């Protein structure tokens, strides 16, 4: 049952360390996915998922675990550590490839070697995000300018229409006046 599975999350050296403890089977899969996603959102940093206390996993559990690692917000790295061999076997048979930490770095508590590289990657991601938000700001400015131009164009078109209408009216009255003059001339000639 769901009671057989626990999730622990803590911040360690700027990493979000998530421990999955107990049996992750089809009964616990959905609740696990929800709780893991919430837990990961609560603690910043690259995610280290520690599976050393994962005592059992079935097909639906494996799918839920893979889904959690794939649906993290952009920029959140995730790495799996201390994956028990039978858990790894199911993942491999099902063709679910996870980002496993090489065995050399185990256990995660002593995970120092890749940390600098992680910081570098995090910095790069933050830079890229900054660039993206600046670009978005520029794009917004261009969009606003375009909007202004289109409003002005619309009002110009409206005025042009009005002027044309007035011109047509003037022409019509001029034609009427000319006809009047012609008729009065004819009458004069007859008399």
């Amino acid at each position, binding site marked *: 049952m769901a009671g057989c599975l626990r999730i622990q999350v803590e911040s360690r050296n700027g990493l979000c360390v998530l421990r999955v403890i107990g*049996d992750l*089977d*089809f009964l616990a899969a959905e609740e696990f996915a929800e709780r893991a996603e919430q837990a990961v959102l609560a603690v910043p940093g690259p995610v280290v998922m520690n599976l050393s206390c994962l005592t*059992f996993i*079935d*097909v639906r559990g494996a799918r839920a675990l893979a889904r959690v690692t794939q649906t993290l917000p952009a920029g959140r790295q995730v790495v799996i550590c201390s994956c028990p061999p*039978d858990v790894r076997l*199911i993942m491999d048979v099902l063709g679910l490839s996870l980002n496993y930490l090489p065995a050399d770095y185990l256990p995660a508590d002593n995970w120092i070697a890749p940390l600098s590289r992680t910081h570098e990657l995090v910095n790069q991601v933050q830079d890229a995000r900054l660039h993206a938000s600046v670009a978005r700001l520029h794009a917004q400015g261009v969009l606003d300018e375009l909007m202004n131009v289109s409003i002005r164009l619309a009002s110009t078109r409206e005025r042009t229409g009005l002027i044309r209408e007035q011109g047509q009216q003037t022409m019509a009255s001029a034609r009427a006046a000319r006809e009047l003059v012609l008729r009065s001339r004819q009458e004069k000639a007859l008399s």
Partner: protein
Amino acid sequence: MMADMWSRGSVPGWAVSADEAGRLVLDQAFDADSLHELRNAVLAAAVDAGMPDDQAAQVMLAVHELAANAVLHGGGAGWARMRLVGAQLHCRVSDIGEHVPDGQAHGTGAAASWQVQPGHGLWLVQNIADNFSVASSLGGSAVNAVFAVREFRGGVSDQ
């Protein structure tokens, strides 16, 4: 009460040839609440039958997936039996069957719930077992998965 339902002959169409052969190492009912106990019992029985730990874990996974299928699609409960026949471990999981509405073709309801789809539980069992078969009838379905005990030393089974 449950034991009566699964006693020999009560459900027609089940293969019973392997049912009585060999040594019974597990005979246990299960539902959603007792799957954890079932897994522990299966693991212990497989080790007891002489299996190495990693293969026993695979048998536990296979029986769990079959039981999960029975819980989800086979009426919510079932029965697991394991027999050691020679150097082979025969695992049989039976469910109590879904209610088949009147007018629906006989057996289609039960058979549909035991179809093998790539990447799903039954598919996994089919992949890790040496032999796999499904028998369905109106009273429910029974799945047989057979595992050849690796590094079988014989003596363990007869003690």
